[in-house]
């Protein structure tokens, strides 16, 4: 009988074979409220889940960061928790999103490292006791489409009005537009998918412009 390997062994093996989807290819854009119907209509035609229609979601996202108090070497580890408000027995999702690389002009999408995992509802208490600080939280409601490995979400972002216990009540939309995201999670080195995404984004061009967004530059503008 073969001896059991440890979980770490199998994880290392998986990492060696490069089958862990730890990279996210991302394009973002936005569309005004009054045109969202047209976009949804277009997506319904383009995407895979034609007959079942788009999947809706209503998620609460909490963004934490783990920071150490060193003055010399400031370190921060961003962590996000997402939970479905409409499906009560769904697991919570914990997500690490790393620094994004814009790359040069020729690279069609933003690439950032990410680790996604499902977890139990104790994650919120776990993170706060771990030393994480809650930076901000919001509610995202919208529609999800699939096209092959690509995921398209069209979501409206809402502010939490300080009522953390009852998310979903007393929320206020952050803007008069919807956030449109096109993303794929893949093992590192699969850059061909980025090209597919560019082509797909091209097809939505008249309605929404999906681009590589540089957050650092956005930060400087404000």
């Amino acid at each position: 009988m073969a001896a059991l390997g440890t979980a770490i062994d199998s994880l290392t093996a998986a990492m060696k074979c490069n089958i862990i989807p730890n990279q996210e290819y991302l394009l973002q854009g936005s569309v005004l409220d009054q045109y969202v119907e047209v976009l949804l209509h277009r997506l319904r035609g383009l995407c895979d889940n034609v007959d079942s229609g788009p999947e809706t979601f209503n998620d609460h996202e909490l963004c934490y960061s783990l920071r150490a108090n060193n003055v010399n070497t400031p370190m921060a580890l961003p962590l996000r928790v997402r939970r479905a408000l409409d499906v009560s027995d769904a697991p919570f999702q914990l997500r690490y999103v790393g620094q994004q690389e814009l790359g040069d002009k020729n690279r069609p999408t933003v690439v950032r490292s990410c680790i996604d995992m499902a977890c139990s509802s104790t994650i919120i208490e776990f993170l706060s006791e771990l030393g994480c600080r809650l930076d901000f939280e919001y509610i995202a409601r919208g529609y999800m489409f699939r096209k092959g490995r690509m995921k398209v979400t069209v979501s409206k972002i809402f502010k939490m009005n300080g009522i953390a216990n009852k998310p979903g009540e007393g929320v206020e939309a952050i803007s008069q537009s919807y956030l449109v995201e096109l993303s794929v999670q893949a093992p590192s080195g699969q850059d061909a998918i980025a090209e597919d995404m560019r082509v797909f984004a091209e097809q939505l061009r008249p309605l929404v412009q999906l681009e590589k967004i540089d957050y650092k530059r956005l930060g400087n503008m404000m």
Partner: protein
Amino acid sequence: MGVTILTQFPVENKTGPQIIELLSKRISALGAVPQGQFLVDCETYSSVPALGHQRTVHVLHNSEQPATVFALLETGTKTIPLATDGLFDLLMMKMSSFYQSKKQTKAESKGPRFEIGDFCVKLGSVTVSSNFKGVLVEVEYKPCVVPAMCWDLIMEFMQGFLGSLGPTTPPSFLQNRMQDIYSPIDTIQQYLEHFTLFRKSPGPALIMRPQ
């Protein structure tokens, strides 16, 4: 997943393989069928000083739930359990500048696994950083999910093959959770309780019982 009771079997001048052999013979004589091997391991990380007061994260894996990673966070005042999936190990690597793995404390319990009726019995020899420390016997009664309902029954079963060395009181971790629905993380908490004791103990000849 049913109620699981973990107990330590005293070593008394025998080697680990001898005890496992002895218990395997006893349980097979009762009609148990060997069903592979099992492995529970535990790695402990502690927070760096820059993060404020000392906290400890124990990351455990159980071959019975191979796609799950269990993490237990000890803050000093309370323990927070978390069940998550295999990529959590990857996240712990990312956290290496905040939580550092304590070397020399990697504990594991490993050995044969038996099935007998609705019971599942696991005989694990425990090592802490590759040093043999003792033997843990795990008995799971799969159909029942409330410890209070089947404690007497499991106790009777354990005394059946451990004799007077079987447990007579529920594990301390379960004592105030007897009426709750049992879940896999409760097994993990019992393992952690024993691993912590083993880490503190100097050698394998340990007679002290956790209850």
